[in-house]
């Protein structure tokens, strides 16, 4: 439980001064009556261990479980899930020759430290009890490093997901890395979409394209748009784990809502939807993802509808119907830029297939189109081994770069700086 309260105060003059004092006195009284945390009697991780999902990369095994409210009560003596913190139990068994170190920023760029989670449980004037809380939370925290031949388990405090928790764990050793991606069920949530993703991935193996030019032609034949009308303007190529790792490192989280289900491709709603939120949890970009019925050199192919809602991070709330911002190319191009910093992007190309839609002139808003685009689909190839930004290669497909270069040159010739 949180004992803190926040209020808006505008200290400007005597009346506000009195208001400030009243508020603080009230807070002191409230916090004084809030000593309630008790260490749970028989906390252990056996239940979490029993339902863990595991994966092995070379000589290293990762197991993980998402804690529900009841698990939190049992382990922490309070439901910390209720404070917007998602605890995840993990265990690393290291049979490699490297000492390994977990990079928390890769799991969630906005993760919480254990003492940060413990802080709201503190009571004023209760130094000893507060120290006990801190020690307890610290002890449960996952601690790097994991020595060669050793195993470590503990809790990561991250931000909550909806539906399925896609856990990315980057373990770093001496000039080596072990990236993991696990799809974890969240207690009390339906895990249907993730299961469907894997069924579709298995099915797609029947149509495995080997030749790059044939693959390009196949990509151009994929549906232009979802039945809800939004353009499918991106293709991801790579193992689902590598794609997820790159997105999570850049702050995308699994989060679908009602409006996503109305966008259908291959006669079904998207298998997975990821969103990147701004600070303070305001709505931002979405990526609606469908497993396409083909593979390229055994690698899965994901058709993606990328966009952002009108209003973006400045919208008051995203609870209602989300309206696609008409400049879909901007959203597509900025996603590419973001993923260039992910370490997971290896190659980039562009193909047709979306169909060009010219923009509506500003003086004729009645004859409006829902969106405008150059009609190109960005194709992003992902790899497991993290790459430097200078290693990303561009494929010579649709002469997107040259086309843009020519446009830029013309605009440049006609443009005065700052206009």
């Amino acid at each position, binding site marked *: 439980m949180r004992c803190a309260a926040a209020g808006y105060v505008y200290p400007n003059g005597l009346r506000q001064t009195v208001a400030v004092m009243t508020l603080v006195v009230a807070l002191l009284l409230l916090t004084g009556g809030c000593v309630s945390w008790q260490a749970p009697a028989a906390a252990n991780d056996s239940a979490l261990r029993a339902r863990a999902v595991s994966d092995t990369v070379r000589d290293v095994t990762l197991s993980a479980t998402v804690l529900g409210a009841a698990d939190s009560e049992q382990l922490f003596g309070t439901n910390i899930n209720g404070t917007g913190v998602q605890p995840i139990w993990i265990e690393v068994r290291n049979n490699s020759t490297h000492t390994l170190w977990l990079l928390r920023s890769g799991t969630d760029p906005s993760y919480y430290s254990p003492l940060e989670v413990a802080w709201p449980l503190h009571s004023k004037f209760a130094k000893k009890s507060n120290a006990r809380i801190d020690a307890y939370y610290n002890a449960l925290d996952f601690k790097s490093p994991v020595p060669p031949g050793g195993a470590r388990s503990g809790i990561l405090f991250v931000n909550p997901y909806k539906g399925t928790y896609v856990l990315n764990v980057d373990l770093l050793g001496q000039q080596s890395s072990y990236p993991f991606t696990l799809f974890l069920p969240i207690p009390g949530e339906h895990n249907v979409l993730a299961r469907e993703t894997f069924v579709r991935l298995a099915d797609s193996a029947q149509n495995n394209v080997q030749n790059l030019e044939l693959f390009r032609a196949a990509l151009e034949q994929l549906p232009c748009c979802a039945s809800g009308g939004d353009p499918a303007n991106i293709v991801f190529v790579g193992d689902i784990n590598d794609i997820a790792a790159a997105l999570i490192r850049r702050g995308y989280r699994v989060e679908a809502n009602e409006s996503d289900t109305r966008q259908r491709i291959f006669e079904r709603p998207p298998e997975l939807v990821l969103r990147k939120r701004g600070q303070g949890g305001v709505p931002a970009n979405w990526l609606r993802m469908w497993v396409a019925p083909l593979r390229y050199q055994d690698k899965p192919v994901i058709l993606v509808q990328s966009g952002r809602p009108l209003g973006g991070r400045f919208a008051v709330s995203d609870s209602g119907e989300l309206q696609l911002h008409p400049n879909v190319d901007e959203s597509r*191009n900025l996603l590419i830029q973001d993923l260039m910093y992910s370490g997971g992007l290896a190659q980039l190309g562009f193909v047709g297939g979306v169909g060009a839609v010219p923009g509506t002139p500003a003086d004729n808003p009645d004859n409006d189109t829902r969106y405008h685009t150059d009609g190109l689909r960005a194709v992003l190839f992902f790899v497991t081994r993290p790459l430097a930004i200078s290693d990303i290669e561009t494929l010579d497909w649709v002469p997107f770069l040259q086309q843009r270069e020519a446009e830029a040159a013309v605009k440049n010739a006609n443009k005065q700086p700052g206009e």
Partner: protein
Amino acid sequence: MESRHAISSVLVVTLIALLLAACVSTGPLPEDEAKDYKARLTTRSDGGLTIATSVLSDTESETVYGVPLAEKGIQPVWIVVENHDDIAYWLLSPGLDPNFFPASEAADAFAGDSRKNNRKLTQRFEQLAFKNPVPPGGTVSGFVLTNHDEGVKMVQLDLIASGQLKTFSTINTVPGFHADYHERSAFTQVRYTDAQIVNYTEDEAFRAALEALPCCVTNKKGTRNGDPLNLIVIGGVDDAFPALVRRGWHPTEATTAGSIKKMINSVLSGERYRYSPVSPLYLYGRPQELALQKARDSIHQRNHLRLWMSPMQYHGKPVWVGQISRDIGTRLTIHSPYLTTHKIDPDVDAALVALIEDMAYSQNLTKIGLVKGVGAASIDEPRENLTTDPYYTNGQRGVLIFDATPTAMVDIEFLHWEGDEGGMVKESARRKINQ
């Protein structure tokens, strides 16, 4: 006992409230003699590429865009890229600010009820935006919209072509704040004579020098120790700086009367205040050259680091001595003349490790090491910083070596100094469960 605390807390708050009333009348600092943003360019070149940048004042951005961008926390950076190479380059906006604003999104912030006007507004924003690519032999100029900084802005330009990256870093003054903002010169000012500078090329000698540094920062008089000096950053404008900017670190405002008022408001309301000021701490008899922070969801969640330029170099690279802490809350205090302070996570090693982990994704971190020098403080006998926050540590300082050439995460090297290979966190300061 409790009632005595309560009374003293009320007294503190009364004192603060009285001071606040005095702060309200403090006017804005005199505006810089702002030259036109196109005239005060900071320019850099590498091979066939030349770039120039400037940061717009709040008044300038309102004039150029026709709407008060600063009120929404948006700050345009003016960028010119001149390309004399034979390939096209693309500017990556997330390199300037991982939370930058796409032009259309910033336009949405000012949308009204008229669709026609909204469309015009969006087109205006899109026209002003920097447009990729920069063709061979061409010049492209335009704005990237970033989060608002006060005083000074670190601008990082990452320009990529297939299989290539060119990076440029500039430090720009933001007109309208302190004309003499000292961070502007942090990377460039000559602080030491050639005779004072020691360039280490032997690792063991360098390690010994790092271990011999003072344990902690001090107060102005040097009579009391404060936060531990737990960080060494090796690199300058071209290597350490891009790494920090790409991961969302930005300079923070020096504490002024105006900033104190804004911060206290922020403490009381829980609102996000991106540039919450930091108070000066002392090393080498002077306050930090550079104070950086990485804001999270609210003022209560941010990491701070302070850096001092040392007279040391490592293979010719500047060596910065620093202090890093993670805020887990903000509280009112009588131990700081600024009356508010950040409640730090007492596990200061966790803050250091968080920075190192974050930097692993920055593309410029090449080596990580640990040295002694801070002195251990156990959880049962913690030390205190200058604002009486307790902290404990295993006594090690982290050493981060940066290089301008991008390094993939997988190629980062651990120095075999303190700790095991990669053994960033010893558990001496922490307790085992159920102990």
